[in-house]
């Protein structure tokens, strides 16, 4: 593997993780993470949108005038999001009703715009595609962790299946975890834990 590719991967997943380093895309992190199943589909939708829109922006980068580049980026992102929305509506109506307006809101997900601006605008398509893909994966794994915690504590289930102990009578379900404030607490704790790994590593390398 080329060192450049390796850098894109490690940046997207860890060193420059969109959630706990760049702190982008927090809105959707807070919104969709109270059920793991919804989160999984949201992540798949984001992986698709982010990697392809970054690649498309990059393909058009030589023709797009600089002063209207953001309009063009939004247009491209919206295009892919509508495609995802239509596919869900046509072939997976149950999930489409579960996610409701959140699919449409991928358009305003800051990560997508952020990566198109920071990477797609300057680099060739393959590079941008990989960058988008691994940023989306970095986003996904943090979201999945948050969703697992929230669903388990809040509803006592994992992917909708009742878990031993947590769904039993001894566990008083923390309703607040499923409600919006739970997302803030969990996100803060997860960010804190990941950042403290990072700090320890930086200290060691000094």
């Amino acid at each position, binding site marked *: 593997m080329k060192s450049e590719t390796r850098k894109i991967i490690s940046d997207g997943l860890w060193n420059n993780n969109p959630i706990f380093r760049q702190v982008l895309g927090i809105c959707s992190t807070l919104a969709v993470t109270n059920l793991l199943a919804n989160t999984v589909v949201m992540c798949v939708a984001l992986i698709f949108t982010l990697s392809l829109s970054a690649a498309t922006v990059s393909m058009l980068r030589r023709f797009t*005038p600089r002063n209207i580049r953001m309009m*063009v980026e939004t247009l491209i992102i919206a295009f892919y999001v*509508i495609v995802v929305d*239509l596919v869900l509506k046509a072939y997976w109506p149950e999930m489409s009703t579960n996610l409701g*307006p959140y699919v449409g809101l991928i358009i305003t997900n800051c990560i997508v715009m952020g990566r198109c601006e920071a990477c797609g605008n300057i680099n060739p398509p393959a590079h941008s595609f990989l960058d988008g893909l691994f940023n989306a994966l970095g986003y996904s794994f943090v979201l999945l962790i948050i969703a697992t915690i929230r669903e388990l504590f809040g509803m006592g289930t994992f992917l909708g299946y009742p878990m031993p102990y947590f769904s039993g009578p001894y566990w008083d379900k923390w309703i607040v975890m*499923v409600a919006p404030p739970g997302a803030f607490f969990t996100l803060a704790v997860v960010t804190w834990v990941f950042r403290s790994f990072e700090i320890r590593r930086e200290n060691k390398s000094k």
Partner: protein
Amino acid sequence: MREKKWFPVVYMFAVTACFSSIVIGFSQFTSAKVQANQYLAFEKAVLMVLPGLMEEGESRLQLHETYVERVSEPDERSAGACTLREAGEIVAYALPISGQGFWAPIKGVIGVEADKKTITGIAFYEQNETPGLGAQITTSAFTSQFEGKVISPGDKPLSLERPGDELGMSDVHAVTGATQTSSRLEKIINDSLKKWLAELDEKSERGSQQKT
């Protein structure tokens, strides 16, 4: 050419036209399927609330066939509700209900026996309530409470009580942590039921007048 003043405008038009035409084409391609899905969701809700029609694990196509075979569309006698009939006699009604929920409209179907009092079930086919909270109105834990409840003649045909409260013949428990959804849903159910019952009364009065 990129330095020309008109270039950004023309470029934006060209890009927009290109992407929009792809999206339009794609949505044409899927629109029939999307509409069919929406109608199927309604049919499924109707089958769920009418007694003895819903079998677990049936495919969408089978559901559609059962619906076409057994359910009669709304007519004069049912005041807007779908009906289940045996030998021409109405066995149960499935009344579509809809109204504003917390985030978006809630649409559902409520099943009532031929006595126009006993509830046979309730199902929702369109809602956008908060996942995990308000959206629990679609779970069987919530909807199964309605089975066998009796419409009370007063101002509130059915009421959603606080979780943990004692329940009467026409009460069910609301969803914990979703007060907004619950109170709006209560209003939707009661408004629809009252309107429907009033219409039915009117129809049957008119019917009996014609006979005499």
